[in-house]
């Protein structure tokens, strides 16, 4: 049974990727681009040393978003608010970090903590609304994402919390003092954000929290059965609230690698769309810390290697289509597997109970 699970956990994502590859190949053929060659150029380009480094950096952000989504999923919460949580968090972390100067390690720690706290607070709004008002976290988070985007855009105006470099259209927060920078690690042809190490620890922490702590046990049991958990003495509403806040806090760390090791300030060019990515990765990696890691690298690889497509006359949006198809195929695959397993179990239970009914008969015949 355990082996069966592992088998499906590997086959299903692969099947989804193959399905989407076939689909995308079809689209490429429609326009007259050769699928095999296109794919080969992409892979060649994606695995150049310079790109591997860039992919690792992107993947580290994606990974954190994926873990944030996965924690929510474990509680049956659909945290589509990662976008807003991340944006609020990285913005306020940049503002606080830019406003003060502290000894090196303290400064970085403070920035990270501010990010986690702001993300957690923003996430807990949706948690509060869900617990106290019964409002679906999907709806409230969608609204909160827009509000977060608007608030940050408002605060980023020059004269408020942001500034505008002369001769540039880009608005950004004040540059962090060097004590607030995180070093980069030389690797291959580029520099890896040392925040990557933090994201590895986030993954380990996620695993430990989930599998080795009372909170994790409660989390998983509440996610499996609300009623059973409540009967077992778990305060389910509180669990929802805490999970939502925790998921938000982790989402708040999503942009930290870029902030601390690359840009050193928040600007409007910080990417959007982490919510969708995070949810997709959690689905693809089946909420498992290692699975999400693979998924995150794969996603970053797709994003990065898409850059070569435009040069070859293939619109890079083919990658967006591919990612969308992967998400759909993976959830369809899981749903079908679940259905098949349920049928199998039913059959097993059915035959077992038939035997039990049959057994006393034989005994009575003997007597």
């Amino acid at each position: 049974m355990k082996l069966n699970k592992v088998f499906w956990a590997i086959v299903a994502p692969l099947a989804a990727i193959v399905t989407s590859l076939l689909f995308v190949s079809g689209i490429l053929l429609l326009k007259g681009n050769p699928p095999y060659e296109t794919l080969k150029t992409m892979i060649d380009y994606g695995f150049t040393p310079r790109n591997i480094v860039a992919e690792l950096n992107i993947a580290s952000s994606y990974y954190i978003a994926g873990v944030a989504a996965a924690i929510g999923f474990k509680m049956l919460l659909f945290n589509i608010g990662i976008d807003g949580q991340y944006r609020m968090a990285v913005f306020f972390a940049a503002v606080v970090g830019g406003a003060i100067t502290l000894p090196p390690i303290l400064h970085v720690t403070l920035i990270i903590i501010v990010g986690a706290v702001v993300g957690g607070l923003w996430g807990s709004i949706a948690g509060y609304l869900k617990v106290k008002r019964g409002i679906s976290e999907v709806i409230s988070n969608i609204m909160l994402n827009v509000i977060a985007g608007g608030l940050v855009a408002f605060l980023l105006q020059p004269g408020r919390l942001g500034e505008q470099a002369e001769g540039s259209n880009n608005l950004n927060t004040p540059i962090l003092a060097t004590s607030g920078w995180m070093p980069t690690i030389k690797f291959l042809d580029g520099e890896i954000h040392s925040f990557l190490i933090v994201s590895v620890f986030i993954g380990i922490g996620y695993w430990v929290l989930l599998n080795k702590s009372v909170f994790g046990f409660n989390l998983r049991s509440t996610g499996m059965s609300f009623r059973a958990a409540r009967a077992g003495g778990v305060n389910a509403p509180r669990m929802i609230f805490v999970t939502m806040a925790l998921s938000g806090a982790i989402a708040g760390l999503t942009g930290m690698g870029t902030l601390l090791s690359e840009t050193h300030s928040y600007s409007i060019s910080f990417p959007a769309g982490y919510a969708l990515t995070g949810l997709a990765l959690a689905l693809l990696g089946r909420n498992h810390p290692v699975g999400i890691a693979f998924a995150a690298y794969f996603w970053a690889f797709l994003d990065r290697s898409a850059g070569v497509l435009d040069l070859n006359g293939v619109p890079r949006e083919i990658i967006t289509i591919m990612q969308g198809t992967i998400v759909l195929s993976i959830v369809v695959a899981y749903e079908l597997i679940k259905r098949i397993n349920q049928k199998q179990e039913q059959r097993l239970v059915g035959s077992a109970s038939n035997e039990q009914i049959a057994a006393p008969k034989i005994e009575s015949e003997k007597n």
Partner: protein
Amino acid sequence: MSTLTKSKLIKTVSSPSRMAIIVAVVLIVASVVRRITGADDITSAGATGATLRFTVPLLMAGLGGLWAERSGVINIGLEGMMIAGTWIGAWFGFLHGPLVGFICAAIGGALIGLFHGFLVVKIGIDQAVSGLAINLLALGAARYLSSIYFATNGGDISLSPQVKQPGVFSIPGLSSFLIDLNAKNIIVISDAAGILGGFVTEVSYATVLLFLLVPISTWILWRTRFGLRLRFCGENPVAAESLGVKVFRTRYIALAISGMFASLGGAYLCMVSASVYREGQTAGRGFIGLATVIFGNWRPTGVLAGSFLFGFTDALRVRQSTSVHAILLVIVILGLLFAMWKFFQRKYKVFGISALSSLIVGVIFLKVPKIPDEFVTFFPNLATILVLVLLAQKLRPPAMLAVPYREREEGH
């Protein structure tokens, strides 16, 4: 005793005349505020016209959301369906004129709706996942297709060639009469004339036809057998099925209509609100449509009211953003009137909340010279959150909204 007779009195006033009283009060207040602040745009014919053009896309997305949610399926993919509508509308509108554009957008939207239906109804995957994936796919597909079709026809990857707009009409005589009256600057009367003038001057045929979908939706959902069954599927699919309602089929139809409406809203955006497809044109309107469903308490007239409100603020922001500031004063006065009314009803808690919030808005009005555009942009979202927080008890969503349902397999 007196409260009893008062509340009876209020109840005996029929709902249409109550509406009339509310409209009259709002009109008077708006008129006074216009005089005080000089924000002429809040009751001009031009603003009404713009409001219509901003309202219809939200309305269509909202009605689309309403149809899906009434059948028990949440449609997060509205945004993607709108994007599809803008693209299809622009492309076929460019090739064969606006009518064909609208028809093709409707068909395309219905197909995407059915696809969503296949995923969530037949296969049973998470409704939010399916919707989000549709948004992602539509975004990618629109850009991909633009690079193929628009780029070779005088547009580029994010812009279509010019699309012909559907025709407009003004009601002869009445239109010019109302606009003259609006210019005369008589209190209340000119304001009423300005607002009405916007409804009869250079109105697109598409606007009229799409507005008709509000009464049609109400009629189908609340006055026909099919509508009853559809709402039944949203309230209690198990009971519905035991009474012989085909839950899957009903939900498929609901989602096809949902996709069709959202897509029509997209087509309207690129052919009436603008005359070109531009990337990012929908700008989250699908999600605001989702918000109007909540705001409108899952009723077509409520969705209409919500769309008007959000469309109006959007139109003011684009035309003359100082007017948005004047609207604050309207809110303050209306809020205080509402508070007084509640005071006479002896509902002191509601009185306290509304009086206090009106005063807060009043302070903002006096202290802040201009409402930042960013705030106006997320006003619909904030308003929806506030409605959810303050009025959650009074909202009546379909009972089995977004709860997965499996039809009983044959042979059981």
